């Protein structure tokens, strides 16, 4: 057993950290103020290869795998959970095409996605539910037209990250009126009847776009059906359970790190009754809990991603990592804010942002309750 990162992984971490601190850090205040995604970061992120981290080399990506992606999301999330969230979903949108796309689809779609020339997302959740896909109402009707065969999609998706930014969206729709009969489609910007809808106003993760996706008689050619008819649930769930959950674990790790550093740094400097805060046992216990949560979440998340990179089954481990890291991020944000006392709630310190951002680690890619359902299946019986 070896808990050391390789020399190359250390280089990746330094590269990600410098990018996060030098390029992302100066934009956080503006993202907080406007709630807008910083589009001017797309190009430098693309040049750094961030969109194609897990895309195979033959399709224009770096083929680096999930551990490298986790390093990236952790480092970006340490500076901006909002940007890390946007980035993880851009990558999530690519994953179903990598896993289930035909060679033609991969050749056509992956290179521009890996280069960041086009951006991606996954659109599954509807107003009727996210954890319960059987409530999905978006329908796909097969149709022959003079221009070719395809499907006409009608429906609305909600709470879709990058809804207004993504050029390529993997959409789940019902091809039959049966509870688990779904098909996945690749919907592209420019297709008639496909447009983003309302933009959500969130409390946290400001600067990460969330909104509606509207499909009104949107004709999607057969060439853009992802996998076979009826296999959509498998397609979406694989991407969400692997890329989505490890992605959320990565963003959570970033938040955990930020909380430990902010609270630890403050407790070392702030003096109360002539002693720094970190000399008081009450504060030491909080710092100890923060460090323990950070380290436990780190080990779970890297184990899950390592398993994925080894080609081993990892669904329960991904769920464990996502469950623990996201809950730990919320605990850490609360604890860090407490260590800072009144300052913890003021805008001049980042802990108030961590509090607002951490809560969204739970519903994305499966709530904690859904994670526990997945994890329980791996328990001895």
């Amino acid at each position, binding site marked *: 057993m070896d808990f050391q990162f390789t*020399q*190359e992984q*250390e*280089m*990746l971490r*330094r*590269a*990600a950290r*410098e*990018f996060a*601190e*030098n*390029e992302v850090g100066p934009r956080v205040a503006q993202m907080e103020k406007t709630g807008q995604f910083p589009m001017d970061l797309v190009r430098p992120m693309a*040049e*750094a*290869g*961030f969109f194609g*981290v897990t895309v195979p080399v033959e399709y224009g990506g*770096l083929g*680096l795998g999930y551990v*490298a992606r986790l390093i*990236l999301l952790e480092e970006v999330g340490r500076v901006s959970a909002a940007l890390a969230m946007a980035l993880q979903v851009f990558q999530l949108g690519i994953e179903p095409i990598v896993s289930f796309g035909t060679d033609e689809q991969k050749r056509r779609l992956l290179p521009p996605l890996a280069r960041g020339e086009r951006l991606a997302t996954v659109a599954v959740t509807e107003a009727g539910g996210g954890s319960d896909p059987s409530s999905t109402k978006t329908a796909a009707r097969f149709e022959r037209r003079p221009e070719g065969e395809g499907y006409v999609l009608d429906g609305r998706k909600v709470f879709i990250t990058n809804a207004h930014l993504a050029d390529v969206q993997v959409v789940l729709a019902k091809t039959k009126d049966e509870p688990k009969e779904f098909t996945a489609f690749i919907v592209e910007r420019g297709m008639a009847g496909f447009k983003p809808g309302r933009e959500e106003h969130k409390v946290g993760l400001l600067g990460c776009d969330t909104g509606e996706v509207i499909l009104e008689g949107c004709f999607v050619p057969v060439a853009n059906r992802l996998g076979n008819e009826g296999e959509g649930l498998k397609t979406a769930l694989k991407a969400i359970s692997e890329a989505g959950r490890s992605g959320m674990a990565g963003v959570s790790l970033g938040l955990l790190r930020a909380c430990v550093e902010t609270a630890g740094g403050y407790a070392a400097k702030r003096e109360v009754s002539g002693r720094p805060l970190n000399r008081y046992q009450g504060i030491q216990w909080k710092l100890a809990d923060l460090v323990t949560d950070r380290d436990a979440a780190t080990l779970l998340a890297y184990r899950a991603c390592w398993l994925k990179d080894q080609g081993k089954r990892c669904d329960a481990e991904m769920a464990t990592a996502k469950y623990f890291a996201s809950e730990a991020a919320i605990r850490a944000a609360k604890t860090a804010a407490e260590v800072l006392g009144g300052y913890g709630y003021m805008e001049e310190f980042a802990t108030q942002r961590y509090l607002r951002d951490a809560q969204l680690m739970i519903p994305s890619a499966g709530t904690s309750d859904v994670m526990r359902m997945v994890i329980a299946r791996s328990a001895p019986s």
Partner: protein
Amino acid sequence: MDPVTVVVLVKPVPDPRKSRGSVVINPEKKTVRRQGVPLALNLADRYALEAALALKGRGVTKVVAVAMGPPEAAGTVRETLALGADEAYLLSDRLLAGSDALATARALAAACRRAGAGLIAMGAESSDAGTGLVGPLLAALLGLPHVPHCRGVSVSQEGEAPGVMAEARVDGRAVKVKAGLPALLTFDRLDRPPKPAGFAGVVAARSKPFAIWSAAELGLTEEEVGPAGSPTVVREVRPAAVTRRAVIFEGDPDTVAARVLAVLAEKGVLGDGR
């Protein structure tokens, strides 16, 4: 202009982000401890590397990074490949331990010759030792013109002889200095952060040449480098005492502002106002 190889000299130094402000001084040798501490590329060297990379395709065919340090600095030196250098070499040998600025310059001179340097770029000083001597000594040993305080460089267009036009800052003023090749340029630390390496750069670094050079490979002898080749010794190291003086000006805002400006100008902190 004939194709030019730029050698960028980089120094692995204790990582200022990870040292938490506590640099450990070896009590006997009076030098900064570098073993077992996280290392990073010296910041001023990063600007030298950036300037060298900006010349690629404009008269410069190859950028070679060269460092001197312990074997564990290999990972740090390889980062130059991720940042865009074409080749990287680490000069590492027990004979070199304890080299002062002159002995270091001798070793680096041999490395620059070996790498076929047509132009040498490096940071003006390192963040750990900070003597600022290695650059000028190296230029003297190699018989090269030295342009200090560089911030950028372009290929000189005038005349037949190959040359570079360095943008430097002398006494607070921006100047352009033309130098024939080969030449040595030393770069200051800049206010902006250096450009980070991308993941794509890290992947590209896999296939670029990297090797460790021994002293013998470069023809260096025990007399030239290490303690025997070092005419200087550090006698004492003590923390610099930083003192602050608070002055309160009173009066109407215009008068106070004028007095504050006069004091700042007298202290030389306003630069040339450009």
